[in-house]
C-alpha cells in the first residue's frame, strides 16, 4: 500500500478515536496492564515502543505536538500505564486518554472549573537578577518554562511573575549571559536571587543579520563580519564607513579627502568589474541606500570628491553594520550582490524602564603631517636656473623673479591654507525602554565640524532617530517602525586649497591693508583666498523610514512584509561673486557674477513580502523562506545657472539674475523586482546546509535581457561537536569548516543605456529648444555581469573561546563583463555599453583572530588582529590587443595597473626621457612596457582593548602595504616654469635635479619651455617613476575612558557616567613623500582628531 494512503487511513482512524473519546466523555481509567522498564535517558519514542511491546497499546500523538526525542529516566517496576504516562508527560501541557488499545496524547483542555480554580491558585513569584558583581541587570527576561508567562526585570533588576502552576521552573535569560533555570514550588515562591554569569562562548549568542533572515554566528554558513555600536562609538568619526577601516577583513575603505562629508571608496574583496560599478550594495534598515554621490551639480565640490551619502547617517544611531562577503551571504541579493552587501541597522529600544543616555564631546582636527617645500631662496634659484638652462631671460610676466615681487618675502602656504585647527563637536541624547511586547527608542544627535581652511566653513548634521516595536498579546502580530531623519549642511567653497600650498613662497599677501583681496597690481594670477569667496553650500534632508509587519499564522509559519522608503533631498548653491575675480581680467564683468542653483531628489522604495517556515523533525530543523522584492529608485536632478547679477549681495536671489540658463537636468528611473528563496537545514547543530536562490529583473537592461537567476549552496560542519574531537582535542571548544559556491550579478551601470535617446540641450538656438542625440551609442543586447564566488573557511575557538580564529579563502570570478567601451572620437560618440567575455579574478586570504589575553575581574585585555591578502587578476579579455585598452590592461595582471615608460634623466639634456623600448624610432603607447601595480598587497588592523577597573583603553593600528601614485602625478608644473596657470612651487626633492652635463640625476633639470613641460608630464603621468610605495602603518584610533563607579552616582540618580578621550589618525609611519599615503596626491589628507567626551546614563 502506498505510504500516503496509509497515512491518511491512519489519520482517519485517529480522528474517529478522538471523536469517540470526546463524545463518550470517557476519562482515562486504570487498566490492568503493567510495565517493567528501567533505562536511564530513554527517549519517549523508545518508551512508547516498549509500551507497545509489553502491553500492545499504541501510543498516538499529533506530529509537532510532542517532541519524542525528549528523554526521561525510566524506572518502572510493575507500573501502571497511568503512572508511566504521567511520568512521560510530566511538565508538558499535554494529557492523554486511553481507549481500546490506543493511548491518545492531546493538549490539556482544562474544564471551566479547572480554569476558575487555577485562577485562584495563581502564585506570585518574585526576585532580583544581578550580574556576577552584584550589579542589577535591567531588561533580563524571566519566563516560566512551558507556559506563556514572561516578564522583564525593571531597572533595579527586580521582577514579579504570576504562575498558574504551583510548581515549575523559572528560566532567566539575558543576551550575553548564560541561561539560568530556577525551580519553584508552593514552599518556595521567592524571593529568588538570580546571578547571571557572562557567557564565554560568544559565538553561540551573537546573532547575525543577513537582511532577509538572521542566523547565529555559530551556525552561519557564509562569510559575514559584524561591527557593533560599541566599536563604532569609540571613534570620533563623522561617517560610519570610517569605523570599518582596519577592523574588518576583506573590506577596503579608502578615504578620498579629509574634507568633512567627503567621499570614500569601498571595495569588498577587490575589484570585480572592469568598469561598471564596484560599490557594495548598501541597505539601511532594509532599504536600499545610494552609494554614490547624490549631488545634482557636477560642479566642483571641494577636493574633487563627492559628498558621501553615508555621511548623512549619524554613527551614533547605528546598532550594527554587517558586511556580507561571499556567495552564501550575498546571493540572496542576486544581481546586486556581486560587490558585497553592507547592512546598516539602526538602534532599537531595549526592554526595561526608560533609560536616558546623553553625551557630549568636543575637540579639534588638524592636518597631521606637513611636507617640505622649497623656501624662497631655493624657489628663486630654481626659477633663475630654469631660465638659464633654457637660454632665456625672465619675461615681463615673471613677476616672481623679474623684480616685481619682493624676493625675500616668505609665506608658509601650508600654515596659511590648511594649518588651522578645526573644531569638532558632538551631542546626543537617547531615551529607550519598553516592556516585553513594546519597546521604543527616540533620540537626537548633533554634529558640527569645522575645516582646516581659513574662514568659517564646515559641516553640520542634526538628526533624530526613533524606533517603535509592538507585539500583540499572543505575540502573533508584530510591528516595528524605524525612522531616521538627518539634516546636513555642507558649507564649503569651490576648490580644495591643498593644491595651492604650492603657491610661490614669495607671492605677495593675499589681502591688502584694508583686508580686501589683493591682486598686487594684477601680478597675482591665482589668489587662493579668492576661492574662499566662491562659496558652495549643500543642504540635505535625508529620511529613512521602515515598517516591518509580521504575523505568525502557525507556530512555525510566519509572514512578514518590509516596507521601506528613503528620500534624500539636496539643495546646492554655488556662488561666484565678482569680488572673487581679479578686476584686471577681461572676465571682470557683471556677467561673471554667477550662482548655480542645484536641486536633487533621490527616492527609494522597497516592498519585500516574505514567508518563513520552520519544520522540525527528529532529523533536524529545516528553515524555509520565500519572498519577493519590489524596489524602485527615482532620481530627479536639475540645476540652473544664473548670471549677470547687479550685485554680489544678490547672488542668492535667482530673481535678480538677468540671465538664467538650464545647467543640467536628469530624470532617472530604476525598477527592480525579484523572487527569492532560502532553504536551510540544520542537523543536530552539527551539519548545516544553506541554499539560496534568486531570480530578478532590472530595468537597466533591454527587453529580453532583464531577468536572470542567481543562487548559492553553502555548507558547514561543526566538527567540534563530534565526540572524537571532543575527546581528543579538549582544548578546542569550537571548530567549524564551511564552504560555499554561488553566483551573483552586477547591474551597476547607467540607466537607459539600451535606448537611443535624444536629450534636451542646455543651449537653445535663437530661443528655440534644441535636442541632440545622446553621446552613448544605444545597444539593446547587453545583460548581467555575473560573478561566481567560491569560499572556504575554518573557524576555531580554543580554551573556552579565549582564542578565536577564522581563516577564509575566497575566489571570485566575474565574467560577462559590462563594459562601457570608449569609442573612437570619430564615431562622434563617447561610449557604448557592452558585455565582453572578459574575466576578472579576485582571490584572497582573510585572517581574523581574537584573543582574550587576560580576563580577570579587574583586568581585561582583548586583542584582535585581521589581515587580508588580496590578489586581483585579469584572466582573459578577448581582443584586448585591438580594443584600444591595450595600454591600460594586461592579461595575467591586476586591473589596477599602470603601464609605464622607462624614464631616465638624459645626461646631456637633463630632461626626462622615455625609452624607445621597441626601437621603432617612435615613442608611443607601445613603449609603455613596465607594468606597475597600483593597489594593496595586503592590509589589516590590530586592535587592543584593555580594561582595568573603571579604566578602559582601546587602540587600533591599521596597516596597508600598497603601491600608489607619486604625489607629483597631481602637480604637473615642471620645476622652474612660470606661475601663471598653476601654483609652481615644488617639494624639496627637486633639489637633487640635473644641473650639469653628464650629471647622473634622478630628477629632471629645471626648465620653463613647453618642451621641458611635455617631458616632465609624460614622466609624471606615465613614467615608471610615477608609481611609488605608499605603504603605511597608522595609529587609527585611540580611546581612553573612565567609568565612574556606580555607588557615588546613585546619589545623583545616575546609572552610569563615562568620561573619554578619543583620537583618530594619531600618527602614520610611511615612506610616502606626499601629504598622506591614503589620499595621495595633493588633496586634503584624513585629519587627526582629538575629542574629549562625557556620556551620562540616567
Amino acid at each position: 500500500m502506498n505510504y500516503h494512503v496509509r497515512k491518511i487511513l491512519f489519520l482517519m482512524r485517529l480522528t474517529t478515536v478522538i471523536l469517540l473519546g470526546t463524545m463518550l466523555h470517557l476519562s482515562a481509567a486504570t487498566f490492568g496492564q503493567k510495565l517493567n522498564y528501567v533505562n536511564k535517558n530513554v527517549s519517549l519514542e523508545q518508551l512508547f515502543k516498549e509500551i507497545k511491546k509489553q502491553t500492545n497499546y499504541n501510543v498516538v500523538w499529533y506530529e509537532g505536538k510532542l517532541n519524542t526525542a525528549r528523554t526521561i529516566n525510566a524506572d518502572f517496576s510493575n507500573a501502571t500505564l497511568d503512572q508511566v504516562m504521567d511520568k512521560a508527560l510530566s511538565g508538558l501541557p499535554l494529557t492523554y486518554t486511553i481507549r481500546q488499545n490506543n493511548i491518545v496524547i492531546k493538549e490539556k483542555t482544562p474544564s471551566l472549573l479547572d480554569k476558575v480554580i487555577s485562577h485562584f491558585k495563581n502564585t506570585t513569584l518574585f526576585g532580583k537578577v544581578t550580574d556576577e558583581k552584584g550589579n542589577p541587570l535591567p531588561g533580563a527576561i524571566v519566563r516560566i518554562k512551558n507556559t506563556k508567562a514572561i516578564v522583564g526585570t525593571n531597572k533595579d533588576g527586580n521582577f514579579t511573575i504570576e504562575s498558574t502552576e504551583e510548581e515549575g521552573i523559572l528560566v532567566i535569560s539575558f543576551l550575553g549571559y548564560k541561561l539560568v533555570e530556577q525551580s519553584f514550588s508552593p514552599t518556595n515562591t521567592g524571593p529568588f536571587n538570580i546571578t547571571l554569569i557572562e557567557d564565554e562562548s560568544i559565538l553561540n549568542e551573537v546573532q547575525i543579520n543577513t537582511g532577509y533572515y538572521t542566523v547565529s554566528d555559530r551556525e552561519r554558513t557564509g562569510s559575514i563580519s559584524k561591527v557593533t555600536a560599541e566599536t563604532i562609538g569609540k571613534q570620533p568619526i563623522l561617517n560610519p564607513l570610517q569605523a570599518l577601516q582596519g577592523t574588518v577583513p576583506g573590506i577596503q575603505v579608502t578615504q578620498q579627502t579629509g574634507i568633512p562629508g567627503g567621499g570614500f571608496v569601498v571595495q569588498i574583496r577587490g575589484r570585480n568589474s572592469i568598469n561598471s560599478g564596484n560599490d557594495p550594495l548598501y541597505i539601511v534598515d532594509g532599504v536600499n541606500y545610494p552609494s554614490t554621490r547624490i549631488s545634482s551639480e557636477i560642479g566642483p565640490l571641494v577636493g574633487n570628491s563627492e559628498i558621501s551619502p553615508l555621511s548623512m547617517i549619524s554613527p551614533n544611531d547605528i546598532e550594527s553594520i554587517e558586511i556580507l562577503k561571499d556567495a552564501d551571504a550575498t546571493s540572496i541579493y542576486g544581481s546586486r550582490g556581486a560587490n558585497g552587501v553592507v547592512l546598516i541597522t539602526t538602534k532599537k529600544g531595549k526592554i526595561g524602564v526608560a533609560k536616558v543616555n546623553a553625551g557630549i564631546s568636543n575637540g579639534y582636527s588638524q592636518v597631521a603631517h606637513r611636507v617640505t617645500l622649497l623656501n624662497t631662496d631655493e624657489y628663486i634659484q630654481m626659477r633663475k636656473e630654469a631660465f638659464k638652462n633654457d637660454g632665456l631671460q625672465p619675461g615681463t610676466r615673471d613677476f616672481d623673479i623679474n623684480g616685481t615681487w619682493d624676493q625675500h618675502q616668505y609665506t608658509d602656504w601650508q600654515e596659511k591654507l590648511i594649518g588651522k585647527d578645526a573644531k569638532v563637536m558632538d551631542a546626543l541624547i537617547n531615551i529607550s525602554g519598553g516592556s516585553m511586547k513594546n519597546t521604543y527608542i527616540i533620540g537626537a544627535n548633533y554634529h558640527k565640524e569645522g575645516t582646516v581652511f581659513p574662514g568659517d566653513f564646515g559641516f553640520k548634521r542634526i538628526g533624530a532617530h526613533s524606533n517603535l516595536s509592538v507585539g500583540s498579546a499572543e505575540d502573533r502580530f508584530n510591528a516595528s517602525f524605524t525612522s531616521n531623519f538627518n539634516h546636513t549642511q555642507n558649507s564649503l567653497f569651490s576648490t580644495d586649497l591643498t593644491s595651492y600650498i604650492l603657491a610661490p613662497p614669495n607671492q605677495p599677501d593675499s589681502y591688502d591693508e584694508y583686508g580686501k583681496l589683493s591682486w598686487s597690481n594684477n601680478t597675482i594670477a591665482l589668489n587662493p583666498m579668492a576661492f574662499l569667496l566662491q562659496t558652495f553650500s549643500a543642504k540635505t534632508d535625508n529620511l529613512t523610514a521602515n515598517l516591518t509587519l509580521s504575523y505568525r499564522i502557525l507556530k512555525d509559519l510566519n509572514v512578514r512584509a518590509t516596507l521601506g522608503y528613503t528620500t534624500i533631498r539636496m539643495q546646492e548653491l554655488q556662488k561666484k561673486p565678482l569680488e572673487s575675480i581679479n578686476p584686471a581680467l577681461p572676465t571682470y564683468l557683471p556677467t561673471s557674477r554667477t550662482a548655480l542653483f542645484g536641486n536633487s531628489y533621490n527616492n527609494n522604495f522597497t516592498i519585500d513580502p516574505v514567508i518563513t517556515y520552520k519544520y522540525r523533525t527528529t532529523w533536524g530543523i529545516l528553515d524555509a523562506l520565500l519572498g519577493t522584492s519590489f524596489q524602485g529608485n527615482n532620481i530627479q536632478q536639475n540645476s540652473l545657472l544664473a548670471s549677470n547679477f547687479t550685485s554680489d549681495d544678490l547672488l542668492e536671489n535667482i530673481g535678480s539674475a538677468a540671465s538664467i540658463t538650464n545647467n543640467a537636468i536628469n530624470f532617472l528611473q530604476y525598477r527592480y523586482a525579484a523572487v527569492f528563496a532560502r532553504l536551510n537545514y540544520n542537523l543536530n547543530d552539527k551539519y548545516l546546509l544553506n541554499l539560496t536562490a534568486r531570480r530578478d529583473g532590472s530595468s537597466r537592461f533591454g527587453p529580453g535581457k532583464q531577468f536572470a537567476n542567481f543562487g548559492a549552496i553553502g555548507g558547514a560542519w561543526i566538527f567540534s561537536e563530534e565526540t572524537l574531537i571532543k575527546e581528543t582535542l579538549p582544548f578546542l571548544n569550537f571548530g567549524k569548516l564551511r564552504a560555499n559556491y554561488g553566483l551573483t550579478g552586477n547591474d551597476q551601470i547607467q540607466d537607459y543605456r539600451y535606448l537611443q535617446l535624444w536629450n534636451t540641450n542646455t543651449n537653445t538656438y535663437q530661443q528655440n529648444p534644441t535636442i541632440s542625440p545622446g553621446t552613448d551609442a544605444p545597444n539593446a543586447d547587453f545583460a548581467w555581469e555575473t560573478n561566481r564566488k567560491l569560499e572556504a573557511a575554518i573557524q576555531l575557538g580554543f580554551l573556552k573561546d579565549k582564542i578565536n580564529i577564522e581563516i577564509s579563502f575566497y575566489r571570485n570570478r566575474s565574467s560577462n563583463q559590462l563594459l562601457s567601451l570608449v569609442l573612437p572620437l570619430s564615431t562622434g560618440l563617447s561610449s557604448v555599453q557592452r558585455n565582453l567575455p572578459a574575466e576578472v579574478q579576485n582571490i584572497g586570504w582573510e585572517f581574523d583572530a581574537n584573543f582574550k589575553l587576560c580576563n580577570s575581574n579587574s583586568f581585561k585585555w582583548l586583542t584582535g588582529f585581521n589581515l587580508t591578502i588580496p590578489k586581483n587578476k585579469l584572466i582573459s579579455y578577448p581582443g584586448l590587443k585591438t580594443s584600444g585598452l591595450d595600454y591600460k590592461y594586461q592579461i595575467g595582471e591586476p586591473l589596477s595597473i599602470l603601464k609605464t615608460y622607462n624614464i631616465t634623466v638624459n645626461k646631456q639634456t637633463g630632461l626626462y626621457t622615455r625609452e624607445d623600448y621597441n626601437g621603432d624610432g617612435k615613442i608611443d603607447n607601445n613603449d609603455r612596457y613596465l607594468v606597475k601595480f597600483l593597489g594593496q598587497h595586503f592590509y589589516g588592523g590590530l586592535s587592543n582593548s584593555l580594561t582595568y577597573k573603571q579604566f578602559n583603553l582601546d587602540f587600533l593600528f591599521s596597516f596597508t602595504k600598497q603601491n600608489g601614485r607619486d604625489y607629483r602625478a597631481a602637480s604637473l608644473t615642471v620645476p622652474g616654469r612660470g606661475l601663471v596657470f598653476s601654483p609652481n612651487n615644488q617639494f624639496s626633492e627637486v633639489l637633487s635635479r640635473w644641473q650639469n652635463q653628464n650629471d647622473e640625476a634622478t630628477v629632471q633639470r629645471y626648465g620653463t619651455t613647453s618642451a621641458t613641460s611635455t617631458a616632465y608630464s609624460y614622466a609624471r603621468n606615465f613614467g615608471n617613476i610615477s608609481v611609488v610605495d605608499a605603504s603605511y602603518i597608522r595609529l587609527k584610533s585611540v580611546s581612553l575612558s573612565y567609568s565612574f563607579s556606580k555607588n557615588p552616582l546613585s546619589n545623583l540618580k545616575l546609572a552610569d557616567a563615562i568620561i573619554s578621550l578619543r583620537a583618530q589618525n594619531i600618527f602614520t609611519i610611511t615612506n610616502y613623500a606626499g601629504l598622506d599615503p591614503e589620499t595621495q596626491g595633493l588633496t586634503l589628507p584624513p585629519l587627526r582628531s582629538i575629542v574629549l567626551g562625557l556620556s551620562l546614563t540616567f
Partner: protein
Amino acid sequence: MKYNKLRIVLLGIICLQFSCKKFLEVEPPKNSLVKETVFKNDDQATSAILGIYANMASYSYASGGPNSITCLAGVSSDELIGYNAGNSQFYENQITPENYNLYSLYLGPYQSIYAANSILEGLLTSNSITPTVKTQLEGEALFIRAFAYFYLVNLFGPVPLQLNTDYRITSIAIRKSESEIYQQIILDLKTAEGLLTDNYPSIGRTRPNKSVVQAMLARTYLYLNDWVNAEKYASIVIGKTSIYNLVDLDSIFLSNSKEAIWQLFPTANTNSEDGNMFILTDTPLDISLNEHFVANLFEPNDNRKTSWIRSITNNTGTYYYPFKYKIQSSTIVTEYSMVLRLAEQYLIRAEARINQDGKISSGIADLNLIRKRARPTPNGDIPNPLPDLPTSLNKEDALLATEQERKAELFAEWGHRWLDLKRTNRIDIILSPIKSQFKSTHSLYPIPQDELNQNPNIKQNPGY
C-alpha cells in the same frame, strides 16, 4: 491534489513574472526623447537640427572661442600668440596627441557629423514630417556633414569617412584619402544645393540656405584648384545682390548684416565668443595678435588697420587684438559669429579668375572691390590712399596680391590664414623663418591619442 498545488504555484510564479515585467517598465527620462518620437513631427525634427547649431556655437570648433578653429589654427599660423598650456603647443607647433584643445578640433566636427547622420537616418524612416520641412532638414544635414568634413580634411588630412551612425562600423573605420573625402563633400553639397532654397528657414541668417551651400561649394572648388567651378559658384552668390552686399567695415559682423551669408547665433545670451575671447582689457592670458603679423598686415592707410585692430599697453607691455567684433560681453546681442561672408566670395572669385588664362584682370577687379571698401576718403595729405591694384599685374604678382588681400581681410577668422598657407604650399616659406620649431609635417595636426587608442585601424600622421 499535489499536482494541483504545483499548478497553483507555477501559475503564481508566471503571474509574478508578468507583473514583474510590467513593474520593470520604466519611462524614458523626461528630459529625453526616444529616437522614434523625434522624427514624428516637424518641430521636434527641427529642434534636432537646431541642436547641431547650438552645439557648434557653444564653446566648440565652430564657436570662435578658445577651442575653435578661429583661435587654434590662428595660433598655429603667424596670426596669433597662444599663452596657455593648451594653445601654446599650437603656437610652438609642438602639439602633442594628448592636447585637449586638439580634441575639440577633431571630436567637434565628428559630433556634428554624427548628429547629421542621425537626422538623415531618422528622416529616411519618418513619414509624418511635412515634405517641405523634410527636404529642408535633409539639405541642412547634408550641408553640415560636408562643412565638418571640409575642416577635418584640411586640419588632419586623411580621416575616417563616417556616413552612418552604427558604432560597430564607425568604430573600426579606416582613414580615407583626401580626394575621397572631397568627393563626398562635393556630393553632399550638390545634393544640399538641390534641396534648399534661397529663403533662410530662420529669423536672420542663422541657418543655411542654398546660398550658404553655394558659397561653400565655391570655397571647396577653390581648395581643389577647380578654378572654373570656384568662379561659377562664387559668381552665383555674388550675383544675388538683392540679398548680399558688401557693407562698411564696422557693420560687417553685426547680426543679420547684409554681408553675412551664414552666421551662428551665440548661445550663451551674450555676444559672439570671438569678441569675448579676443578683446583685451589687460595682459592676455590666452591669446593676442602677433605683433610681427600686425606690423606686416596692412598696406599704408588701410582702414581695416584702424577699424579691426586695437591694442592695450600696461606695465608688462603692449598687446594687440582683433577688433572685428566690437562687443566683449553684453546681454543685448548685437553681433553674431560670422561663418561665411560675401567678401570671401569675391576673394575666391578673384583667385579663381587669376588662375584662369585671360581672366587675370577681372580677378584683380574683384580684389579692388574689397580694397575699395577699406579705403579712407582721400584728403590733402593722402591724395591716393590704398590705391587700386593695377590690372596689368602678371599671374604671380596677382596671386601674391590675392594672398596679401586674403590675409588683410580674413585674419582672425576661421583659420583662413593657416589653411591658405597650406593650400598654396607656402607654409614652409612663410613659417619656417619665424617659427623656430616648425617643420613641414606640422602642416597637419596630429590625430588625437584617444582616437589612436580606441581604433587600431588609425595610424598617426607623420612627424608625430
